């Protein structure tokens, strides 16, 4: 086991340590992106994985004639949820309680973690098995548990790879998308034996044998664990049922074997009726794993005497969601069902991977969600809405029709307003330049004057050099170091049109 020394008495860790530092303190996206772009193996892995899943998704989506109707239905249900979230949540609480689940409300990550730690302590257990869950990643539950002396074991194969690799997830659905199987083998050989059943001798990078090594490693954890922690893909208000959608069956193990089950659920996960699942259980697998149907869908409605967990808890977490809901220009982001189709289609994500985003929510959804959930105080959250070319590919694939590009622009506006409010206290050059540009474009005569200056430059430059090459112009070298630019013409269009046509109006 590894130890950490933070100037305090050395403490023996129970689980593999993730990279140091909090995600919120990550460098802004442009810097992190440069770091990630330099990782050649990762780039190849990402390229291969994203292109494969994109093609598959396209194929299974094209099978359904009513795909666009399904998307609209998903959008409509989620809008209905957001409009009356308070009503649905109260109904959900009533029906969860009626079914025998215990409901807890958490305002933020800290409160959620405290509740969960207390619940686990009450069982006398010092370890939990975990179903893959974005909500628990968001609140950084594993590290909170570690500090409380409770070991949290990830049981999803990719989450296990990430955990054993002292790493962080880089994708919502495929957290180890940045790793290839040789790297996975190395991680297993190096780390598995330290935390439980070791891998078999001479493990190679055959996917089947790697999966078997993970299966053997996890098996005794499943059989031993008294407590499981899960998230939920959906929470049905009408019946008080929770739904977990998964591929590997590890989730089913966690949800059925232990005595105590604690589910951490973002408050936006509620859907009004059981029938609403019809829409989402079609949208989600096709959008995420590109499957017609996912292998395991577990639905539970409180404890069943003598079968499965007898002590069932649900922690409903806000953690910034009501703040997002309050913003009409951004609240559509709460419709997200975490399918990750927007990540897979994103040409920027494909280049840099999830670690560049400084959050458990990377890619396009992360770029619009993080500033809403976490605010725009940190350098990384201020940079995220700009981590997009606004190409709109994500808008087209999102199963609940979140207008991601529009929200990106609205979040950019929010950040610009925050910067403007800091005028005089912090030096921001961009607002000054943009103000000048706006003034220039406010009157055609001003634009014409600027064009004449460009034409003079073009006249001289055109005769001498012909084009603008790799010139070390501050700022512009960001463009020019890889891309030529033609010289400006010797006359703008408006000037030419004047000559040929005498102008109009």
């Amino acid at each position: 086991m590894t130890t950490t020394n933070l100037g305090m008495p050395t403490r023996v860790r129970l689980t593999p340590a993730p990279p140091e530092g909090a995600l919120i303190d990550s460098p802004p996206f442009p810097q992190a992106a440069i770091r990630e772009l330099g990782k050649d193996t990762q780039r190849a892995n990402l390229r291969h994985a994203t292109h494969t899943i994109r093609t598959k998704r396209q194929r299974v989506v094209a099978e359904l004639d009513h795909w666009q109707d399904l998307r609209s239905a998903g959008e409509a249900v989620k809008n209905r949820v957001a409009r009356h979230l308070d009503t649905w949540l109260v109904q959900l609480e009533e029906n969860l309680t009626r079914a025998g689940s215990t409901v807890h409300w958490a305002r933020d990550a800290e409160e959620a973690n405290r509740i969960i730690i207390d619940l686990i302590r009450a069982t006398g257990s010092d370890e939990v098995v975990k179903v893959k869950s974005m909500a628990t990643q968001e609140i950084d539950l594993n590290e909170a548990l570690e500090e409380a002396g409770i070991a949290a074991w990830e049981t999803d194969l990719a989450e296990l790879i990430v955990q054993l690799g002292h790493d962080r997830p880089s994708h919502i659905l495929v957290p180890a998308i940045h790793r290839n199987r040789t790297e996975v083998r190395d991680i297993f050989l190096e780390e598995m034996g330290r935390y439980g059943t070791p891998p078999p001798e001479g493990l190679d990078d055959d996917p089947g044998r790697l999966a078997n090594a993970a299966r053997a490693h996890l098996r005794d954890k499943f059989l031993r664990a008294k407590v499981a922690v899960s998230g939920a893909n959906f929470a049905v208000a009408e019946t008080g049922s929770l739904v977990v959608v998964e591929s590997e069956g590890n989730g089913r193990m966690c949800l059925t074997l232990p005595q105590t089950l604690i589910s951490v659920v973002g408050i936006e996960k509620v859907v009004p009726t059981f029938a609403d699942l019809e829409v989402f259980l079609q949208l989600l697998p096709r959008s995420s794993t590109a499957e017609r149907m996912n292998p395991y869908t577990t639905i539970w409605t409180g404890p069943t005497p003598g079968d499965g967990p007898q002590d069932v808890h649900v922690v409903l977490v806000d953690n910034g969601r009501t703040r997002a809901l309050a913003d009409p220009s951004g609240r559509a982001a709460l419709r997200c069902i975490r399918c990750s189709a927007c990540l897979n289609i994103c040409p920027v994500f494909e280049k840099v991977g999830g670690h560049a985003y400084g959050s458990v929510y990377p890619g396009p959804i992360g770029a619009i969600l993080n500033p809403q959930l976490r605010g725009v105080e940190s350098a990384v959250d201020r940079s995220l809405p700009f981590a997009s070319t606004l190409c709109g590919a994500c808008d087209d694939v999102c199963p609940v029709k979140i207008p991601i590009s529009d929200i990106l622009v609205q979040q950019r506006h929010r950040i610009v307003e925050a910067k403007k409010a800091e005028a005089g206290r912090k030096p921001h050059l961009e607002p000054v330049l943009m103000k000048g540009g706006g003034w220039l474009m406010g009157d055609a005569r001003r634009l014409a004057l600027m064009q004449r200056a460009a034409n003079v430059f073009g006249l001289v430059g055109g005769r001498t050099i012909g084009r603008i090459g790799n010139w070390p112009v501050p700022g512009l070298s960001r463009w020019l170091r890889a891309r030529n630019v033609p010289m400006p013409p010797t006359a703008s269009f408006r000037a030419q049109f004047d000559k040929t046509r005498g102008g109009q109006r």
Partner: protein
Amino acid sequence: MAGPTVALFATCVNDTMFPGTPDAVRRLLERLGCTVVFPRQQTCCGQMFTNTGYFDEAVPSVRTFVEAFDTFDYVVGPSGSCVGAVRHQHPMLARHAGDAGLERAVGELTPRVYDLSEFIVDVLGTVDVGAWFPHPVTYHPTCHSLRVAKVGDRPLRLLRAVEGIELRELPDAEQCCGFGGTFSLKNPDVSIAMATDKADHVVSTGAEFVVAGDNACLLNIGGVLGRRGDRARTIHLADVLVSTREQPTTASATTAGRAR
């Protein structure tokens, strides 16, 4: 047959950097029987400001756009991105400005704003514009033409009708070239990596030209092609469509012609 009167929306990038393209639009539309005018108050669609988050700074562009074009039945621009920005963002910006009069004017004007390919196919009702361009080309659909202006396959239908042209399929055609306006300056490394992919795909087709409906994207792609000394050049759709046996468009007249 006297065709409609068209107000040419040159766009600030074309007006300033690529005057050949709006001029090609003028000649093409005149050949197709239209009367083309250039309203002098026009400046810019404002998306450089809007998309960087500067809504207040974009509002003057919305006003000049309305002043320049509100009396015309047909406003035509050779840019899916700028036309898309007018149609998709001007209503939001007018609302942001809190100016009900502007909002109304924008609402009335935007349905009359067309991308060049839409105007030819939908309004003039033709795909064969009598063009001749005997070169192997590949077509990059550009993100905003595709997903904001939603011009669909109109540019391809126009290209297929060009005499002598050889259309080659671009791998990963719908993937962004990495320009993204100020993205290319805020995230230059990612932008360059994406532009390099696009340039590689263009080169892999062996085409002489990569055609698109947006010179800003072509500036980006052509910038890489030009720097690397690749043979492929960039050309705007209008420059292809205006080309005839009598007056063929030459490589030196195109956007990348000046960037190598």
